[in-house]
């Protein structure tokens, strides 16, 4: 098992050194394909978990425990006709889901899965992610406007206003992270959190972590902030008119965005692929049998910690949806503008002073 993982890691570095087109393409597919599979099973997990929380069974017909349900849904949607409304702008109508999808996935180009497993280790990583998540709004606005339907337009307007309101709080939370780590490079941000789980940034930046995650939920238009597509008032918001594959692409993009927010929360505030245990305290251990070898591998830093942390936040998204009732629109705007933004502004001041007077753990 270790050999396999080691080989995999060295494969990754090997491809990085061969800076030619095919190897990069293979790496991109190595990120995209697992991500698409995770998206498929995220929808399945959502239906299963919410069903369990509500005392239902959830999908259980297609395959054992309904495990093939996402693929059955995908095939069904693929063979459905994409109806284009008569009064719509045809080209923009078909372009909108592609924009949303592209933006949701391309942010993964700079996400480090491991100390070496990263497609492109650029210095402006966080800036790139902030820029791309802001671009997501274009897909929504274009979809809502080009459909030429009242529900779509209202949904798109609401969605846009909500996303940009929470974008600000999110940006301020990111500034707090950069102030401590002193770098925009995501790998450096993770390295700044080295140590045990008490060295992760969620300890010094706890309010900013809460603000970031709440903004992330609002940014992806998920419950309890899903007024933009509230079924009971706007049918489905900006994608009312979409059917078949057009709808499926929006759906995949939404779930990819949720996974991205979870991964970013894990990276920025919970140390990404770092282990929660202090590895130096284990230094003098004698290790010769297989079991403790496996245990040590698990305790060490690695991609599995990144996956576990991301899965936890992905679960939170589903958990929130099953638990909280929907906010009213004016409540959402109040939370964004009057609560989250003041909190982040005050925290930036506080953090600035802490760093200036070199107070631990804010000063690294």
């Amino acid at each position, binding site marked *: 098992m270790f050999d396999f993982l080691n080989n995999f890691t060295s494969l990754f570095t090997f491809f990085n050194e061969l800076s030619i087109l095919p190897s990069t*393409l293979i790496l991109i597919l190595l990120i995209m394909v697992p991500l698409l599979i995770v998206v498929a099973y995220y929808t399945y997990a959502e239906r299963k978990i919410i069903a369990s929380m509500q005392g239902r069974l959830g999908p259980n017909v297609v395959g054992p425990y309904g495990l093939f349900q996402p693929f059955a849904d995908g095939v069904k949607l*693929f063979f459905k006709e994409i109806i284009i409304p008569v009064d719509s702008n045809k080209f923009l109508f078909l372009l909108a889901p592609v924009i949303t999808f592209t933006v949701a996935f*391309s942010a993964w180009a*700079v996400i480090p899965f491991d100390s070496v497993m990263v497609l492109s280790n650029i210095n402006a990583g966080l800036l790139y992610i902030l820029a791309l998540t802001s671009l997501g709004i274009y897909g929504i606005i274009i979809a809502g406007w080009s459909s*030429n339907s009242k529900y779509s337009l209202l949904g798109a307007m609401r969605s846009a206003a909500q996303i*940009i309101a929470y974008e600000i709080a999110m940006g301020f939370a990111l500034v707090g992270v950069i102030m401590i780590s*002193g770098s925009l490079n995501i790998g450096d941000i993770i390295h700044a959190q080295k140590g045990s789980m008490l060295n992760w940034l969620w300890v010094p930046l706890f309010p900013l972590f809460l603000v970031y995650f709440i903004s992330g939920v609002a940014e992806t238009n998920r419950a309890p902030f899903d007024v933009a597509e509230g079924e009971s008032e706007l049918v489905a918001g900006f994608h009312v008119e979409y059917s078949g594959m057009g709808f499926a692409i929006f759906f995949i993009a939404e779930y990819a965005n949720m996974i991205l927010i979870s991964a970013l929360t894990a990276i920025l505030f919970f140390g990404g692929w770092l282990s929660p245990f202090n590895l130096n305290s284990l230094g003098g251990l004698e290790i010769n049998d297989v079991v403790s070898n496996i245990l040590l591998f698990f305790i060490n830093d690695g991609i599995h910690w990144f996956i576990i942390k991301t899965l936890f936040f992905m679960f939170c998204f589903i958990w929130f949806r099953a638990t909280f009732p929907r906010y009213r629109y004016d409540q959402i705007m109040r939370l964004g503008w009057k609560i989250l933004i003041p909190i982040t502004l005050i925290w930036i001041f506080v953090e600035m002073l802490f760093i200036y007077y070199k107070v631990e753990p804010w000063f690294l």
Partner: protein
Amino acid sequence: MLSNYFPILLFIIVSAAIGAFPIILSRLINKGKNNNKAKTSAYECGFDSFDDARMKFDIRYYLVAILFIIFDLEIAFLFPWAVALESLGTSGLITMSIFLLVLIIGFIYEWKKGALDWD
């Protein structure tokens, strides 16, 4: 240096292709038949839609967008400052405090004027 950004460009192109491919293929497979008015008109709870959807909308959406530009610019200013925070020392602290204070005064003004209320 620039070669670091090439994989990102390629990633954007590949994800756009993966997003567009199923839509194009699905359009080719499922040719729309019976495109009658009831099927292709915009959804409006079963009624005939009686107006163009591109109607007037609430001014507050516009206001929120303008406020967003101001604050997003502020964040854009804060990013490089936060990276260089430790090397800037006291002058960096004071300059940014003044900058933030001016913005916070504006924010309080908006708040008191009711630009952030929504009902």
